[in-house]
């Protein structure tokens, strides 16, 4: 059973935000528009965080998907069991169960969860680019990065149809696929030979807010 994880190399990242845009296109995340954006309601499953400049240094950029924590605070607080951790280590959302209380968005220390304040369908004909492999979420539910679970399923179906196991590199989430600098990697952390395993064991590897005990599964490789 794979335990999915991601590695993001901050030394290769060029802060271009291709990941942010590709994810929104792949996962039917609608734009908020200027008024809602001013109210802080932009939904970016992947967001490039900016660590502000200091006296000594310029800004630093950290792309942040969902961490798919192995000890997820969001799952612990959900009163209706709408968010759950799958047997492959994905923290997923059952949109039908979600009551929109937003307890989980508060519990997440990474700010990775988003509430649907408004309709997720763009005006025609932009609704034409809806990805049929991903549901469109209704107003009033919480959503977040799924590590492109639809692509994981596709890859698994393909492997099953061909009668072979999944290989390292079979699953490519949208952000990983598009990253022009090749800074993002995805794979099975329980396979010691996978690229993400090897990179996560390297000297530059670190995780965000480890001290909170969330056991995040996105590793960052330090710059410089």
């Amino acid at each position, binding site marked *: 059973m794979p335990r999915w994880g991601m590695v993001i*190399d901050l*030394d*290769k990242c*060029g*802060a*271009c*935000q*291709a990941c*942010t*845009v*590709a994810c*929104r*296109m*792949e996962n039917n995340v609608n*734009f*908020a528009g*200027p008024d809602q*954006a*001013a109210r802080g309601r*932009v939904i*970016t499953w992947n967001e*490039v965080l*900016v660590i502000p*400049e200091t*006296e000594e240094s*310029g*800004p*630093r*950029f950290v792309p942040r998907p969902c961490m798919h924590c192995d000890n997820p605070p969001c799952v612990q607080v959900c009163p209706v069991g709408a968010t759950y951790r*799958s047997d492959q280590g994905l923290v*997923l*959302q*059952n*949109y*039908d169960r979600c009551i929109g209380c937003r307890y989980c968005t508060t519990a997440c220390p990474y700010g990775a969860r988003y509430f649907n304040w408004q309709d997720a369908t*763009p*005006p*025609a*004909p*932009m609704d*034409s*680019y*809806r*990805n*049929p492999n991903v*549901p469109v979420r*209704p107003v009033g539910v919480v959503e977040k990065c799924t590590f492109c679970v639809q692509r994981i*399923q596709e890859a698994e*179906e*393909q492997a099953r*149809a*061909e009668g072979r196991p999944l290989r390292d590199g079979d699953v490519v989430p949208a952000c990983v*696929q*598009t*990253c*022009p*600098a*090749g*800074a993002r990697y995805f794979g099975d952390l329980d396979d010691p030979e996978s690229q993400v395993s090897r990179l996560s064991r390297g000297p530059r590897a670190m995780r965000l807010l480890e001290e909170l005990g969330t056991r995040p599964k996105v590793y960052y*490789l330090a710059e410089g």
Partner: protein
Amino acid sequence: MHWTRRRLLQATAVGAAGASVVGRRLGLDQPFRQALVEAAAPPPEETWVPSVCLQCPGACGIRVRVVDGRAVKIEGNPAHLGSGGRLCPKGQSGLQVLYDPDRIKQPLRRAGARGEDRWEPISWDAALAEVAQRLQDLRGQGLSHTVAVVGGRFQGPVEELWKRFLNAYGSPNFVKRGATCSQAAKLGVRLTQGIDDHMARDWKNANFVLLFGYSALEASRPLTWLLGSYGEMRRGRPLRARIVAVDPRRSVTAAKADEWIPIRPGTDAALALAMAHVIIREDLYDKAFVENHTFGFEQYRDLVLREYSPGAAEAITGVPADTIVRVAREFATTRPSSCDGGDRGTSGMSNGTYTRMAIHSLNALVGAIDAPGGILVQQKAKLGKWPEYETDDVAKAGVKQPRMDLAKTRTWPFGGNVYPQFFDSAAKQEPYPVNLMFVYYTNPLFVQPDPARVMKAYEQIPFIVDFSPFMSESARHADLILPDNTYLERYEHTGIGQGPGVAVTGLRRPVVRQLYDTMSTPDWIIRLGRAMGGSIAAAFPWDSVAEVVDQLVSANPKVAADLAATGASVGEPYTFGNYEQVLKTPSQKFEFYSQALKQQFEKLEIGEADLERMGITARGDTVYLPHYEPIHISGGPAAEYPLVLSTFKTATRPEGRGANQPFLAESWGLAAGVRWDSWVELHRETAAQLGISHGDAVYVESRLGRVRTRAVVTNGTVPGVVHMPHGLGHKGYGRYAAGMGANPNEIIELDYDYLTGQVAWLTRVRVSKA
């Protein structure tokens, strides 16, 4: 094959009524009801169409996923070297161009006055007939030369088709808009290396890259390829390359570089020449290359040693002399190294050409010309030849008339296309009035300094045809709109203009059937040519642009086969050190002393008065050598407008376009923390002096007027310089773009690099709380 399997699986699941099968296949995260509905529907027709992006002229290869005739996702095409299967944020946003809800859906004829936004539909045939009639009338009166084409983002055959039309019709006025961008950069390379093109950069093999005013990770092309090179330079080889960015502003590139060197805007030539001083004085230059492949080294050496000590450069640039010495030594000893001044960057200045010459000369000093890790000449595939055509006497007389933009006259000795001059001449009706203007893939009332100035030209031109698919501010002031297809609906071949050096060819093709009653402009030009009859029609022996593309491409069987198979064709590996091909100067060497410059000046009899007029203070041989010409900044006076306005581009902006794409607007200013808006960056000290805090509404004001925007306070700039991004502040262009942000062009007073007619973008402003 992948998708056939999937359809097979789906078809089987539909047959089996088990809800658990459906649930497992589609995943627990989906609304169950939707899952049932989709399971009952027939499986969608799905295909991937290879094409080429055109959010910028990088022309990265893409593949577009199309489901049931809807384009749903764009990815990079792995077979295309420019994208390598990846794609920048602009490319990912491309479907918002295709599916923009405010696209123009059919040809429109103005009803009411210009700018009143009253239109009536007109058929393609009627529009063609009207335009053809007007053109015939003008031709009959001996006024064919008063017809002009201004453009644009040309790709594939359309540039040649326009030129062919104007040539056969009888007008010299084909005016490209490169003067707003990279004319002086190209000239700097042409005068020293003899190549009239953008250069390719072999960064993957470089160990030290020095960038002057060049945010390569945001503002260059192909961006996907440059970011990929950046990733390689950092972690793709055992030795991590060093990157140093010289810039008045701490761009994202400068923030990611190992060192940001703040510099006073427009003074980069002094820095480059002082570096040359150190490199030559300490004997660190590539002796073999200099001795065997350069001309004029002695004069160059004498000049830099005499006039450009690090101390002298510090006084001009504000960069400490110690830093200049250190970076010069690092640059010269960390080989392979190369430097670059960007496309607009350091060249969109009053001294742009000389600055580029100074920067490019550093490449010659360290042997980076056509070497691994250095600056290369982008190869292009050899395709078919265009068929010859005859022109009649009317045409011959027409093309002999002087160009409205005064290109290659004493006014602009090296100006190939002087876009702003065209409009100024048209406004004054000198040397003659413009009677009909075609505006193709450019937005003159938005992209130039001082658009109010351009409006005066519009008022003098009685008939204007615009091909924009969007109701831009320029289209709003046209008389006839003949909407083009978007790039995802067009058929044209593309070559990478600059990138890896190796030739890369792509084929842009419609990924879906075109959405509306629009027409690819090259198809329209062919129809127009045919409608004109006579020798003009004979110059267009095709029915469509697809025919043209097929003829040109099939002349190279390998390229044609590659394009058919994968949508991309990659040429032979790059041949380095090919000096016969890449040093095309009179001496066949890299010319520190530019003979081409001297020859053109002699031919045009440029004298003392001309040098003064062009703002060139150098005299004697220095005129033909790279040197620092004191930067001239438009507007003023300095006492009333004490700050300098500089403009920049973010990675989220596709050239001058993109404000109509919500995904880009929503991520517009990452480092500044701004969405859906413009901003102006001020140094903390400047802001403190003016009593301005981060986020305050402010006015940025010049002699021309003022714009209102918001302040971003930072230490990421040289004090005394403020920075605004280009791309927003439209007065049209649809619901997302109109009224969003501010256009700094409205307050930028037009100024030039007088050698080329390159726009010099710096202007004097003041900033105050709103």
